[in-house]
């Protein structure tokens, strides 16, 4: 049982079209924590988008526990947390409505992430970047998620909040036996968090 990418190939449409990913393979099992490293522009975010169904590959397949990702309906079992939370939410929707779109979320989860109930009555622009990111983490951790893709999710947070969030996420990953993909430029962070590191540059 694992999240598998087989020979993924992809390029963005447009006149400057160029291959971002060329025959990339990747496997993450439940309970595994895979680090993705590589310089900017090497396709780390793009790979996450393909793994979570935000983009369809030009070639190759994504399998979730043996079944193609595109055959899943409803809430995607692979949830992505984005580097820029302000671009990951609808700016014209109150956060509470954004959260309810995907079904119920545990109260405990909101509490553990220090999300104040008052925030849910606000619009995204009324929260700071770090607050919004914690909200996005709560949104991704809904029931039914099997794999979590974290694309540089703590890069904008202070050190104490970073340590808090990762301690929390690792505990969730363990308790719910999730598979985790962590994209980060912070080498000491990957060293500390991951069971295995794949370098996209090689």
């Amino acid at each position, binding site marked *: 049982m694992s999240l598998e990418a087989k020979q993924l190939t992809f390029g*963005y449409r447009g006149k*400057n079209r160029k291959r971002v990913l060329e025959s990339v393979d990747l496997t993450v099992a439940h309970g595994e924590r895979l680090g993705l490293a590589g310089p*900017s*522009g090497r396709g780390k975010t793009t790979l996450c988008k393909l793994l979570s169904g935000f983009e369809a590959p030009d070639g190759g397949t994504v399998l979730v526990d043996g079944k193609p990702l595109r055959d899943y309906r409803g809430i995607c079992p692979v949830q992505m947390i984005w580097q820029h939370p302000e671009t990951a939410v609808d700016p014209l929707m109150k956060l509470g409505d954004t959260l309810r779109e995907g079904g119920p979320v545990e109260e405990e989860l909101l509490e553990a992430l220090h999300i104040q109930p008052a925030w849910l009555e606000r619009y995204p622009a009324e929260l*700071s970047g770090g*607050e919004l990111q914690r909200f996005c983490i709560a949104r991704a951790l809904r029931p039914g998620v099997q794999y979590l893709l974290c694309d540089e999710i703590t890069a904008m947070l*202070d*050190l104490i909040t970073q340590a808090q969030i990762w*301690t929390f996420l690792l505990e969730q990953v363990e308790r719910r036996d999730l598979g985790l993909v962590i994209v980060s430029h912070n080498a*000491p962070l990957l060293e500390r968090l991951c069971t295995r590191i794949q370098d996209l540059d090689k």
Partner: protein
Amino acid sequence: MEPILQVKDLSISFTQYGRGTRQVLLPVIQDLSLTIRPGQVVAVVGSSGSGKSLLAHGILGILPYNSHMAGEITFLGQPLTPKRAEAVRGTEIVLVPQGVTYLDPLMKVGPQIRKGRRDQKARQASRTALKRYGLGEEVESLYPFELSGGMARRVLIATAAAETPKLVIADEPTPGLDARSAQRVLGHFRELADGGAGVLLITHDLELALTIADRVAVFYAGETVEEADAADFTAGKLRHPYTRALWNALPQNGFVPIPGAQPGPGEVGKGCPFAPRCPKQRPECLSPVSYRELEGGLVRCLYPEGEMV
């Protein structure tokens, strides 16, 4: 030497509507003082929601309409009035903003850097600026959504450096950059400072800040809790318990999170803002704590590290 920027007792608060039509004044920054001299990189290190970005917006005079600012800001010896701020921002004072959302999504990168100018000189300047940050000419004809996170950030920096600013305010310029690019970007801020400009580096990344800053101010819940030369930090000489907690939370220094969260605006008591989470808290910490000098630095703590009690 005359300071480029001097901030004295700056406070920023917001008016919000509470229940019905009752107005509530929400303080977000309190009694902030800061001096930047020519050639200096001053880092303001603090967590998200501590009011760091508002400091930048306050200096630039681009705070929202429901905000109030008290205190004094002096730029090159003259008070920085809203009118003057409007005249110098974008040329003498430039901002490298935090998010990619500051780029116009419907405008290609080239014209954005040139700010709409079309002459040959502007074209040349934008190309040079891009090249300086390791981006090729082809980037000029891309839209922001076609850029990777790291590229977008370099475009933001190129936009600011295309002018010859006296003061550069960099609001979280490094997240999303790989270690090498981050060092290169910070190196460019260092260069701008060495060329005589002042740089205000706003960041949460203590470690990176220490690699280029001359002086570091640590910010917590809208107040400065410690200010000292960067050399003190690298030597492990930390004054405030919050700074110590930040240090211990580095992945390579133990990755230890202290419990709790930073108090939000309006939740800060009269005393030290860190007191509720401080391992060394005593009852007297809940009364006002003065910002005092200690061995060449400043600290807002009754029982700082390294001082015998």
